[in-house]
């Protein structure tokens, strides 16, 4: 027989007086319904009968001392994550500081090496690579002038330009592009055009 939902409402006290009286009448006439109710009540009684006295006394007596022990243990362990976090943070900061200090020194010294011998394409690649990481404040005026000269030499060698033509390119930033182009003679313009045309850029 299917479980009668009314039993649940009846046991849980969710029926009003009329419904309750009707259900009790229904119970009288149905042995199966009575059996369902009996089984469920038995289950509840059994569960309730497994009461506090069933527990070993020693377990209850030991509960507080165990708790105190555990609380002490937790108190000690509480500082370990904080200590670990602090140590990790300090280590990271130290590593970052050392790396940034060494990094600048390496970049600067590498660049000085590049300017002293600019002949191979490997040097040019190094120069290009390091130039992205440069901060102008890291260098003196003399050093910057030295880099400019080096760069000019590199450009003139690459494009096979005369010193005069090079002046148009690297003279100074105030030179107007229009004036610069007007100053080129036809042969120079053709030279530049052909150089660019046959240059493998990438």
């Amino acid at each position, binding site marked *: 027989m299917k479980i009668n939902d009314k*039993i*649940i409402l009846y*046991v*849980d006290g969710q029926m009003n007086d009329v419904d309750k009286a009707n259900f009790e009448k229904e119970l009288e006439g149905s042995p199966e319904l009575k059996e369902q109710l009996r089984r*469920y009540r038995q*289950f509840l009684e059994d569960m309730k*009968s497994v009461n506090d006295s069933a527990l070993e006394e020693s377990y209850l007596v030991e509960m507080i001392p*165990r708790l105190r022990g555990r609380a002490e243990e937790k108190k000690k362990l509480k500082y370990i994550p904080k200590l670990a976090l602090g140590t990790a943070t300090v280590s990271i900061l130290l590593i970052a500081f050392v790396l940034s200090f060494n990094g600048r020194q390496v970049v600067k010294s590498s660049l000085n090496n590049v300017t002293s011998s600019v002949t191979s394409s490997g040097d040019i690649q190094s120069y290009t690579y390091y130039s992205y990481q440069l901060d102008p404040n890291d260098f003196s005026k003399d050093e910057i002038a030295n880099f400019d000269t080096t760069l000019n030499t590199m450009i003139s060698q690459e494009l096979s330009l005369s010193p005069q033509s090079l002046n148009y390119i690297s003279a100074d930033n105030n030179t107007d592009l229009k004036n610069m182009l007007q100053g080129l003679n036809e042969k120079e313009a053709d030279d530049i055009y052909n150089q660019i045309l046959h240059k493998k850029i990438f």
Partner: protein
Amino acid sequence: MTDTNSDYELVNSFIAGDESAFNRIVMKYQQRIYWHARRMTGNHLDADEIVQEVLLVLYNKLKNFQFKSSLYTWIYKITSTRSINYIKKKNLRQFFSIDDNESVSLKSKEDVVKDIETKEKLDRLEKVLQKLPAKQKEVFILRSFDELSYEEISEITGKSVGGLKANYFHAVKKIMELIKDNEN
């Protein structure tokens, strides 16, 4: 249901620095906490773990308790939440096979209920209860064994009374079916 005035005095004594007041609170509620956790988890070792966790939380948070609810409601709330979280974690561990079968069977053997007849009865009942979903089981235990009203259960679980009644209804129905199947 409980002696609220006495709870009030005990908590205030503890806040004032009387550590023995905490011991008296533990002695007063330890069995209820244990049995709630035990019915929720279905074995002694898990229940004991929950009891220790609950008492630790109680010890750490009791100084901030402001009696916005009664102490026993608050304790039930902690126990219930911890039990459900524990069950979820356990299910997850079992899903990923972190808890092997051997440790599960060891858990079922270790117990503080020594009376054989009581233990057998408890085993039978726990088998039925463990087949309920955690939320239904929670409502069923609070309602049938702890004999709390739906309003009190609502305060503990944070659910609406209507929702709780529905959960209880499904729980009882399933239990009745399980009892019937077991007898057949």
